C-alpha cells in the first residue's frame, strides 16, 4: 500500500499521542499512587482524553479543518489535565 501524505500525518499523530499515553503510563507505574491519589486521578483523566483522541483519529481519518480543530482541542484538554496533575502533585 502506498502511504499518502494524509495517512502519514495520521500515523504521526497517533504515534505522538501513543507516546504521550505510554509516558504517562510509565510514570503512573513508578509513582506512589496511594499518597498521590489526586495526581493519579488527573493523570488517568489525561490518559483517557489521549485514548479518546487516538480513537477519534481512527474514527475520523480525513484531515478536514473541522476534524483538525477537534483534534487540537482534544490535545489542549489533555495538556490542561496534565498541568492540573502537575499542580496538584506540587506541595
Amino acid at each position, binding site marked *: 500500500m502506498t502511504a499518502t501524505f494524509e495517512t502519514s500525518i495520521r500515523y504521526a499523530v497517533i504515534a505522538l499521542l501513543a507516546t504521550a499515553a505510554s509516558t504517562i503510563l510509565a510514570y503512573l507505574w513508578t509513582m506512589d499512587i496511594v499518597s498521590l491519589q489526586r495526581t493519579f*486521578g488527573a493523570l488517568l483523566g489525561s490518559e483517557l*482524553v489521549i485514548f*479518546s483522541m487516538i480513537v477519534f483519529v481512527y474514527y475520523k481519518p480525513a484531515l478536514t479543518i473541522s476534524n483538525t480543530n477537534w483534534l487540537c482541542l482534544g490535545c489542549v484538554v489533555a495538556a490542561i489535565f496534565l498541568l492540573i496533575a502537575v499542580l496538584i502533585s506540587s506541595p
Partner: protein
Amino acid sequence: MSQNPGRKFVEWFKNRFGLTTTVLRPVPDYTLNPLYWLGALAVITFGIQGVTGLLMLIYYVPTIDQAYSSTLFIINDVPLGNLIETVHLYGAYAMILLTFLHLFRGYFSSVQKKPREMMWVIGMAMGLIVLAFGLTGYLLPWTVVSKSATDVSIGMLSFLPVQIGPILTFLIAGSGSGAEELTRFFDLHIIVLPAGLLSLLALKMYMFEAHGASEPPLGVKKESKLIPWFPTIYLYFAMIGALFAAILFVVSAMFPVHLPAQYSAQAAANYVAQPEWYFLWMYQILKIQSFEGSGIYYALGAVTLVAILFTLLPFLDRGSQRNPKLRPLYSTLGFIMIAEVLTLTIWGYLTPGQVIPDGLAVIVNGGVAVAVGAISLLVFTRKFKVRVKLPLRILALPLKNKSITVLFMIPLILGSVCFANLMSSLTTAPVNIGIAAIDFILLFISFVAMARVMRSLTVAAQKK
C-alpha cells in the same frame, strides 16, 4: 497485497469476539451526535457507580455506630479511597444531571411520539429511581448534613394520605429508629434500586432495538445511511465515554470530598437542614409561606400532578408535529419549566431555612414564567415566523355573557367546597368514606356542569 495492520487486528478482534453477529441493529448516521448519547453516558456513569460502590462496600459498615467512622476510614486510610469516594459522589451528580439533560433533550425533540410512548413512561420511572439513588445514598455516611436532609424527606411522607403515608414510611424508614432507617436505605441503595434500574434498562433497550432511534425533529436527510455497531458505533461510544470519564476523574482529583461532622441529635439541632442541589427546587417550593404546615398537601399535590402530567405526556400531546420550532406551546412550557427549576434551585441555595413570603414567591416565580414565556413567544413570532394564536378573546366572554357567568360560578363554588372537603376527609383519620363519596360525586357533577357552561360559551362565541 498486504493488509493494513490496524485493519488486520480489527478483523481478528471482530471474528474472535463474534461481533459480526451482534444482535444490536445498525443505527442511522444522524445518531453520531453526543446529544443522542446522553442516556448512554448515564448508563456508563451507572457502571462507574457500580464499580466504585462495590470497592467502598469492602470497608463500609452500615450501622449507626460505624457508618461515619468506616466512611472516614475509606477517605483517609484506604489506598485510593479518597479518589474512589469522590468519583462515586460526583458520579452520582453526573448521573442525575445527565438524566435531566436526557429528559429535556427528549422533550424538545418529541421522542415520546408514536411508537415510543411507553419508552418515555419507562424513562420517567428510571429517572425517579436515579433520584431515589441520590436520596438513599446521601444518608449512608451518617453525617449531620445527610441525616438532617433525609429526615426532612421522610417527614414529608407523613403528609401523604393515611392509607399510603404510614405504609411507605414503614417500608422506607422502618419503625423510626436511626438504625432501621440506615439499614433500609442501605438495602434500597445496593439491592432494590440497582435491580429495578437494570430491569427497566433491559426493557428500554429491548424497546429501543424494536423501534430504533427516533428521527431528528427537523427531519432526516435523504443521504442518511445505517452504520453497523462494529467498529464505528463502538468506537464512537468509547470516544465520548472516555472523554466523559476523563472529566469525571479530573474534577474528582481537583475537588476531593470532605466529610461533614458526624450526626448527633445535638449537632442536628444547630444545623439548618438543606437537601442536595437536585432536590433544592422542591425544597424551595415547600418553604413558601402558604405551603408551611398543612399547606404542604397542596405543594406536594401540585408537584405530583406535574410529574404525572409529564409522565403521561405522550398520551396528552397527540399531534404529529415534532419540530420544536413549530411547537410554540410545548417549547415555551419546556423553557418555563427549566427556568423555574433553575430559579428555585439557586434561590433555595441562597436562602437556607428561610420561609419565603407568598407575595415574593408569586413575584419571582410568576415573573420568571411571564418573562420566559414572553421572550419565547417573541422569538417564535419574530424569528421563526410562527403564528401563535393566543385565546385572548375568551377573556372578554364572561363579561359579555353575564348570565352564563353566574351559572358557571355556582358549580365552581360547589366544586371548590367539595374538593376541599374531599381532601380534608381523605387526609384526616378516621376517614369517613361516606362523606368522601358524596363529595366526590358532587365534585364530578360540578365538573360536568362547568364543562357544559364552558361549551355553551364557546359555541356562543363561535356563532358571533
